[in-house]
């Protein structure tokens, strides 16, 4: 671990051994407790005007994502246009927070989004596996930033993390952050591959200590993606991190969030865990694609008074 990396925050562990001691000194997660808490928070009923506000907030928090091998410039342009005006029939519908694409598609999306206020996120660092040499990951990151991305979604090396090589993971995040320059750095923990809630808590703290602006649950490419309990562990981590170091870090659950009901459960959980400081697109995002249409359908239901159907919304 380098000296520059540790000088950012006072009171940081300053050697790989210290880092390890620190991460393993974090209290363990009560698995039954966290799952029960997440389930209990998921039972709140949010209706009428509160629901309308929650839907608009959730739309503003969406990172509209397309990460397919089959992405074409046409699809990315269409998605970017949708990000600017999610519901063309209703000008009061807010724009989403960002568009999230592969680095090769960044210039295409940037041409549509330039000057709109909608951010452009790019996955980088050999997404989704992260199994590539550091040079390749850094070049990937620089290309994305040069193409116009102002947010970088990097993946951590789960292999190194699970092998206990925390120093390597830390240094990689620091190096990618440097390569990303002015762009905001979201660190994907890929919680589906970390195995335990304890590991999720450790990886969250590791990423935050290394300078992440956001911690993100998943790539969306493995079997288990964002879940409420995992996100709750991460929300507790960012809350405790700010209390300890005074720096606020955002959270982005990604993958598997498809319905308005799910999205509102997350909003309730943020409010109950971190307070409303995090209830903003600057500090919380949904990595999703199909979620947006469900939000729009629910929004239409509230404005028109009858149920909406998918025929009236774009496919992507």
């Amino acid at each position: 671990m380098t000296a520059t990396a540790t000088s950012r925050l006072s009171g940081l562990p300053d050697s790989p051994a210290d880092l390890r001691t620190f991460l393993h000194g974090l209290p363990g997660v009560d698995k039954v407790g966290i799952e029960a808490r997440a389930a209990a928070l998921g039972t709140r009923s949010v209706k009428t005007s509160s629901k309308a506000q929650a839907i608009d907030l959730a739309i503003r928090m969406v990172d509209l994502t397309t990460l397919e091998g089959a992405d074409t410039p046409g699809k990315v342009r269409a998605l970017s246009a949708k990000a600017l005006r999610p519901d063309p029939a209703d000008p009061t519908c807010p724009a989403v927070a960002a568009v999230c694409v592969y680095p090769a598609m960044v210039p295409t999306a940037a041409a549509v989004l330039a000057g709109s206020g909608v951010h452009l996120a790019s996955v980088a660092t050999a997404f989704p596996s992260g199994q590539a040499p550091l040079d390749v990951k850094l070049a990937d990151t620089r290309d994305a930033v040069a193409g116009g991305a102002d947010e970088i979604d990097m993946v951590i090396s789960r292999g190194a993390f699970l092998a206990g090589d925390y120093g390597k993971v830390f240094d990689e995040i620091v190096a990618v952050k440097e390569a990303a320059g002015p762009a905001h750095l979201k660190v994907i923990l890929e919680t589906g591959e970390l195995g335990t809630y304890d590991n999720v808590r450790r990886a969250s703290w590791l990423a935050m200590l290394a300078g992440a602006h956001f911690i993100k649950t998943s790539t969306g490419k493995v079997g288990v993606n964002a879940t409420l309990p995992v996100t709750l562990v991460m929300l507790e981590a960012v809350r405790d991190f700010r209390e300890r170091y005074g720096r606020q870090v955002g959270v982005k659950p990604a993958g598997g969030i498809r319905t308005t009901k799910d999205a509102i459960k997350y909003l309730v959980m943020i409010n109950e865990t971190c307070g409303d400081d995090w209830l903003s697109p600057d500090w919380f995002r949904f990595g999703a694609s199909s979620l947006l249409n469900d939000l729009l359908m629910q929004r239409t239901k509230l404005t028109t008074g009858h149920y909406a159907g998918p025929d009236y919304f774009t496919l992507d």
Partner: protein
Amino acid sequence: MPKSPKTSAPTAVADRSRLAVRKTYKLYVGGKFPRSESGRTYLVDGDNVALASRKDARDAVLAARAAQPKWAGATAYNRGQVLYRIAEMIEARRAEFVALGVAAAEVDAAIDRWVWYAGWSDKIAQVAGNANPVAGPFFNISAPEPTGVVGVVAPGSLLGLVSVIAPAVVTGNTVVVVASNPQAAITLAEVLATSDVPGGVVNILTGKGAEIAPWLASHDDVNALDLSGVDDPGLATDLERAAAGTLKRVLRPVSGVDYSGDPGTGPMTALLEIKTVWHPKGF
């Protein structure tokens, strides 16, 4: 439907060594039997019956929409077999319907109605479709396709219920039915659930038509509305007006339909869209 007293009292009441197993008639949505999302029930002839809410209707439309492409994509031969299987299963549960007060002759007629429609599955395309002579070097075919998701307010009798469900599903539509005779309708649902009918093809809600039907009529994802069971002309007019908002097909039969007569192909063709294809030939 005229209610006659149940012909057999539950045996448990007579046999004091057992506790009575009282039945709750639940909804039939997506191949499952959920209670109403609202938690409400009402009493019909001493039985507890789920009282569906608008959100149950919403869930049922989602289930019907999810099931529709695969059901429409199944071969006509396969759909016919499934409908025939329904007839077989009602045959086996005839006594149950009779115990609910349905006349034996009406159960027979309902079984025959399923068999009759089962036979139509691979014939309706020949009757409703055509190879059209056109003035040009084109091979021109008109072929019927299912309309999609159909909302049905069903008449009270078992035969009436079958006579509105069968013509809709035989051609590949899926239905959300608001049933006005809950015990017979849910017993029919139990038949459907054990007859190879894919979950979501038929969804049955029990409750007040006047409460649920307006949500189906205005729903953007419902393609057609069958108002056979609406007796109140004012309500029917309101439903037609709501359905016009999304250009739904609406069936509003003249009152007093005799379901025991020959239904003809009308009930099927009313829920079909004709697709005409021009294909160049002679090159």
